[in-house]
């Protein structure tokens, strides 16, 4: 008995330690401090204040998403309701619970719908970033919080490259000023209010289709990547899945709900 107890003590210590380490490395987050985001299309205000929040350092991986569907069977490929994800949902996986040889568990998960991303975030005790949060966090360069044109060129270079057959692992592209990896250059990412992009073309024509569309105008015509993201978001529907569209989560820092949610 004594022997048993003596042997088990360090084991508990060790397993406790690994549990701690495991929980921390699994989805590291960093704090993004308060700041301002300038929307591509403004209404009366040109800047939106973004309250500080925690953001995942990496996009959610296939491996992490597998854990989620294992615990929540209704989000498995064969069980998901069509209204929550189209036919392409997790099509790159071997089956419901196996990634197969061609899929790297450390690569970002893609082919997931907005509903699935949102459900994952809730399961993880987090949520999806708003457009303002995502754009604000993504506007940082390597060494400064607002990268400006240097970043635009980097992104344009990424756009001009062909999508790789197999997505690289998370963390394989640039780390930005806030410590976030892969904000540009790996995948597109879902945002919580992706469906807030209301402007397209001629204001007077839109008046009948959208309420309030007339008063908007672009704030930075040079920011071509921002137009691309804007256009991409507005073309999405919540059950769409795309083979280079994934997500990462954020968590609020004990403050009131972020405005614009």
């Amino acid at each position, binding site marked *: 008995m004594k022997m048993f107890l003596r042997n088990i003590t360090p084991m508990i210590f060790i397993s406790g330690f690994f549990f701690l380490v495991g929980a921390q490395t699994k989805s590291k987050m960093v704090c993004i401090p308060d700041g301002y985001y300038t929307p591509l299309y403004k209404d009366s205000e040109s800047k939106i204040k973004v309250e500080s929040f925690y953001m995942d350092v990496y996009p959610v991986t296939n491996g992490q998403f597998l854990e989620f569907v294992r615990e929540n069977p209704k989000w498995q490929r064969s069980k998901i309701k069509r*209204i929550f994800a189209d036919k392409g949902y997790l099509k790159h996986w071997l089956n419901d619970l196996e990634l197969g040889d061609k899929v790297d568990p450390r690569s970002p998960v893609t082919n997931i719908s907005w509903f699935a991303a949102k459900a994952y975030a809730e399961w993880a005790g987090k949520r999806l970033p708003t457009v303002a949060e995502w754009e604000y966090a993504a506007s940082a360069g390597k060494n400064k919080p607002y990268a400006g044109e240097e970043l635009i060129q980097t992104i344009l270079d990424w756009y001009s490259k062909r999508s790789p057959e197999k997505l690289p692992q998370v963390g394989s592209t640039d780390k930005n000023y806030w410590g976030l990896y892969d904000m540009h250059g790996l995948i597109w990412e879902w945002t*919580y*209010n992706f469906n807030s*992009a*209301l402007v397209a073309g001629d204001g007077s024509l839109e008046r009948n289709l959208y*309420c*309030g569309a007339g008063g908007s105008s672009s704030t930075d015509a040079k920011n071509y990547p921002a137009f691309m993201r804007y256009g991409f978001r507005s073309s999405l529907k919540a*059950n769409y899945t795309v083979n280079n569209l994934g997500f990462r989560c954020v968590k609020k820092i004990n403050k009131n709900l972020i405005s614009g949610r």
Partner: protein
Amino acid sequence: MKKYIITVSLVLPVIFISLLILNFTAPDKKNYESGKGEIHNKVTSGFEKEKHSCCSSEEDAEEFSDNSIYQLNSVWTDQQGEKFSLSLLKGKPVVLTMFFASCTYACPVLVNDMKRIESEIPKRDLPSYRFVLISIDPERDTPQKLARYAEVKNLDTKRWTLLTGNPDDIMELAALIGFKYKKNSNGDFSHSNLITFLDSNGEIIHQQIGLNQDISESAKILLAQN
């Protein structure tokens, strides 16, 4: 014996700490739906009599087709302040629009468009249809305000239901039906002008985009449901 006590006194705190860690990490990953299911059971409303089966949301979800918006198990509040689940609309064709009561430009026109559609329905068939207005402005659109709105707009609440809910459920429904909206800095909203038609299973059968459109096509589709 001494040694035994020492070992136990060492082991117990370790177990305690491990449990603490477990507690810290595990609840993060609770099944996020269980809570909603409970509320769902508590839903009571004016339509309760029409709701025969009283079961959990999981079972409910099984009753609905893959493309039914009743797969959502969000809980709303109607103009009387009663809890309301969208699935209570099951069995009837539904005309649904998202709006906000203080909207001065588009929403009054949208409501008027819905009333024009309503007027195409033969009087004796009216009880078989439901008209639903869902607010995207829960901060300002309290049940009282919605009730007043129904009164002012002369909406017969026997078939018109005005709902408000929590921002996340509003976003989810909007995303589901393809309704776009954005809160502006002055507190008002930019939004799609969209009327959605559901069949008796809650599947979207038609959407009318824009204001003051010709409603004949929409009315035809709706009438064919009965």
